[in-house]
């Protein structure tokens, strides 16, 4: 699964521009599904039959999009002004490389040299409106020939292992979820399952609204990533969760209270099978579950997430052990749910 | 040579703030004379002790000057205004006692109206119990220097608290090493430098004159072992001789660091690595001498540097003595 995750993370697919990721998933895994379709939002929805008939019983969900930026203006001198797509702490963008547009044009996000910054200015970060991307263009015309207005930009980060087996890459949020789902697609399943690879989660769980409405599952399991702040200078519960402590089974976040029974089932399954697990020790964040839960007459939702440091930044960090345990836990849930069916 | 603690007491009794080190130099000259082949002094007042050896020139420099005050002006009713010699912090000296070379003593006070939080040197005065400007003038002169008045005390068996461990403890360490070195494998220069606290000035000229191949500054370094430490220092008391990596005036040479650590290992001497972000040492000027000098530092970890109550571990100081002795007796050119 790590090789697949590496490949997925290296693809660029910012919210609203998920084409490359969607094409890859379809071309590599579509043959394992029984039906495949895309919709107006760009969601990729596949269904796979399993040993037991259970149409619309379980939907797995992970989003294909990543945070990034979009070009809003091109200056006379050929610099690109932009806004972030999704929630990004603008400080992590300073001094970073980006790739823009369909041609993946390289650019750098710079600021005037700090030698030219006054003592007062030094302590404050300029607003995003003052940021600019340098693509080496010498004029507006020059720049426009390379990157159009509205061109999307992705961060750059080599996906690789480092340290004592940790993994760094951009877009682990949520290519991790996509990788887990893709692996399950390749397996024989004990019941029918719907796989929804959603679009535009980062700008407000947009794709999930449409996907949930059309599928209307009874149960939805969201595969996500969640913030681990297990770094020095962060105390106690504010660490939320930690790397190498296993998948995070959520009972609640800032946007949804998960189905209690599903939460307890997941917890029990993990304990009974010796899978390390943890939960979020701080209420924060949100994901596609919030859109799905309140669709039509309601859907029971649960979430299994990989703990990840530095989410929504170019270099996110996670543990392959946690990824593997997550896959195992999800498989166990599918089997459990199938067993409950007549 | 007397014990380290006795050396500290002896040096503490001498007067030697930056630019007025005479008494200190005389005392160290006395203490070093039986162990020196040659001794000289230069226009900056440095004391240069030469122990001859066949080999490259290895220079150790421990500054003998201390921070202090210098009288600039007589105020009404006999109070004195003063300037600082080196890194004196107004909040750290308030209400401390000082003494002059001629035995006059005084207390540092602040102008009543000055706010403690925003205290500046210009807000401070010295009360020498004079009652009138005339009396004050009979007791001290403009340009007279004053130092913290306090004596060394042991805290338990290992720790010593005293004014001016910066840098008397290093001078004591060098004096001990001077005695212990029996077979120099390098041409050794033990420099007791002046005016380090006002900008590494003595070491600059001493180093030029000696033109060493290798230089090692011996000074105190800040620690990382007090509550709420912001980690500007990296050492802890009692963990051994501190091997300098870098301070605000020098990045030590990897070769020097490697050699010092290797020597320490061979002699089972405990060491720890030190980075001192907030201060500099003679190494800062030695490495720039002439065509460049490979320079390192051997330091004694010290808490509360530049306050009247500095604290260090004599165990660390002893490790420094052993380390310096071992370095002297092994050629710097040897692998």
């Amino acid at each position, binding site marked *: 699964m790590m090789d697949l995750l590496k490949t997925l993370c290296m693809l660029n697919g910012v919210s609203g521009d998920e084409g490359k990721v969607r094409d890859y998933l379809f071309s590599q895994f579509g043959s394992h599904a029984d039906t495949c379709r895309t919709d107006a939002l760009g969601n990729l929805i596949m269904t796979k039959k399993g040993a037991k008939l259970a149409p619309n019983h379980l939907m797995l969900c992970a989003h294909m999009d990543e945070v990034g930026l979009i070009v809003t203006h091109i200056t006379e001198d050929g610099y690109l002004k932009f806004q972030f797509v999704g929630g990004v702490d603008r400080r992590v963008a300073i*001094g970073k490389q980006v790739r823009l547009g369909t041609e993946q044009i390289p650019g750098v996000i710079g600021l005037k040299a700090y030698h030219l910054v006054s003592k007062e200015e030094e302590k404050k970060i300029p607003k995003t409106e003052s940021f600019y991307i340098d693509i080496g263009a010498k004029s507006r015309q020059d720049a426009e020939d390379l990157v159009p207005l509205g061109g999307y930009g992705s961060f750059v980060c080599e996906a690789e292992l480092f340290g004592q087996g940790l993994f760094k890459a951009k877009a682990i949020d949520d290519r991790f979820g996509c990788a887990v789902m893709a692996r399950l697609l390749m397996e024989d399943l004990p019941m029918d399952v719907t796989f929804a690879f959603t679009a535009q989660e980062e700008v407000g769980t947009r794709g999930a609204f449409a996907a949930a409405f059309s599928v209307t599952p009874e149960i939805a399991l969201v595969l996500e990533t969640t913030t681990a702040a297990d770094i020095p200078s962060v105390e106690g519960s504010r660490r939320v969760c930690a790397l190498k402590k296993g998948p995070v089974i959520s009972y609640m976040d800032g946007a949804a209270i998960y189905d209690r029974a599903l939460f307890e089932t997941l917890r029990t399954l993990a304990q009974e099978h010796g899978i390390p697990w943890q939960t979020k020790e701080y209420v924060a964040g949100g994901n596609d579950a919030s859109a799905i839960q309140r669709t039509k007459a309601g859907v029971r939702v649960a979430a299994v997430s990989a703990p990840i440091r530095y989410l929504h930044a170019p270099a996110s960090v996670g543990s392959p052990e946690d990824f593997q345990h997550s896959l195992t836990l999800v498989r166990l849930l599918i089997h459990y749910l199938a067993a409950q069916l007549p | 040579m007397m014990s380290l603690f006795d050396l500290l007491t002896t040096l503490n009794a001498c007067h030697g703030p930056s630019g007025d080190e005479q008494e200190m130099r005389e005392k160290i000259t006395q203490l070093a004379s039986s162990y020196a082949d040659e001794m000289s002094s230069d226009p900056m007042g440095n004391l240069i002790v030469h122990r001859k050896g066949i080999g490259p020139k290895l220079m150790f420099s421990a500054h003998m000057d201390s921070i202090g005050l210098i009288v600039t002006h007589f105020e009404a009713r006999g109070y004195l205004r003063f300037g600082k010699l080196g890194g004196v912090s107004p909040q750290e000296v308030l209400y401390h006692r000082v003494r002059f070379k001629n035995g006059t003593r005084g207390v540092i006070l602040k102008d009543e109206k000055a706010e403690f939080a925003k205290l500046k040197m210009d807000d401070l005065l010295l009360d020498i119990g004079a009652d009138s400007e005339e009396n004050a003038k009979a007791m001290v002169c403009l340009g007279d220097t004053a130092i913290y008045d306090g004596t060394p005390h042991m805290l338990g068996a290992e720790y010593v608290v005293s004014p001016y461990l910066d840098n008397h403890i290093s001078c004591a360490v060098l004096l001990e090493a001077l005695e212990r070195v029996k077979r120099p494998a390098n041409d050794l220069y033990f420099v007791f430098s002046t005016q380090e606290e006002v900008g590494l000035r003595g070491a600059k000229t001493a180093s030029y004159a000696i033109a060493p191949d290798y230089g090692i500054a011996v000074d105190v370094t800040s620690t990382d072992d007090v509550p709420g430490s912001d980690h500007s220092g990296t050492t802890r008391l009692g963990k051994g001789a501190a091997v300098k990596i870098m301070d605000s005036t020098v990045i030590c040479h990897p070769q020097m660091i490697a050699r010092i650590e290797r020597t320490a290992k061979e002699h089972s001497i405990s060491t720890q690595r030190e980075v001192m972000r907030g201060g500099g040492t003679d190494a800062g000027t030695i490495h720039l001498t002439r065509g460049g000098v490979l320079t390192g530092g051997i330091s004694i970890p010290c808490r509360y540097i530049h306050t009247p109550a500095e604290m260090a571990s004599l165990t660390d100081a002893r490790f420094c003595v052993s380390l310096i002795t071992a370095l002297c007796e092994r050629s710097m050119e040897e692998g």
Partner: protein
Amino acid sequence: MDYPSVLSKLCTASGPSGFEQAVAGTAATLLSPYVDEITTSRLGSVIGIRKCGKPGAKTLLLDAHLDEIGFLMTGAEEGFLRFTSLGGVDSRMLPNAELLVLSDPPITGVVSCLPPHIQRQGDFDKAIPIKELYLDVGLTQEEAERRVPIGTPAAYPGGCILLGSDRLSGKALDDRSCFAVLLHTAQLLKQKELDVDLIVLGSTREEVNSAGAITAAWDLIPDFCVVVDVTHGDTPDSPAEKVFPLGKGPVVGVGPNCAQWMSQRLFEKANAIHIPVQTEVMAGNSGTNAWALQISREGIATANLSLPLRYMHSPIETICLGDLEQTAQLLAAFCENLGKEAPAL
């Protein structure tokens, strides 16, 4: 001179101030075809000497510094590394930056950044001081202490990318881009006769205290010296009067730190070979090695010739390839016939 290739070699090598060995080796290898003799100074600077063979010839020193700004590890906490800067690090560039720790073997790290939920409204506007940052190297505390002792240096990862058709972006272009210019200058002069002894100096420690240049010059005792360093390139948020546009040629320094006749000579030569130049007026300290070199021993006549560079001291420093080319042409023209044309004292 294949600048992208040469700079790729120079900028991939590591050399934060005080730890320049790796890049010094690369620099020496690149310099040796153009000089008669290569040595290293006590403080690690690379010195290439080419004598002209004329008796009583004066000595011209060309200097560009090899060191880059970097980091020094100062301890570990829960496996994360604390660090301080070597030279003037721009801390705004650090959150989530990738660094290469120069341990043996080197290891990758990511500068930790705090997630939004534990920050307050105003926090996003604040630059985080280096003292509060940690480097995530994915190790346990035990391993971190073992593999990365206090004093291990680190640098931004190497490599340059091409932006547009002729801009290069990467770390350490300050000042390796100018060292590449010196290489090119030496290459241009190789087939020409010189009437001064030429020394090319790749100096160390410029970013902290110019120690490499100061001590090298002490032994070399040059008569004249041109320091080739970078100056601020134009960006949308810089005051126009303090920066220089890329692609408009090299920048000649004017002021007390630049001997008038040398600045004059640079302007005249630029004119003669049709190279556009810009002027940088510096009222006092030029901020380069020239400031310290000017007062070496009995004094040296110094000049500053600079290359516009954007985002100085960041991992994305950016220069114009055309400017490199023109700076080398100008410098070569300056060197030719210098012995004959320099004014007598």
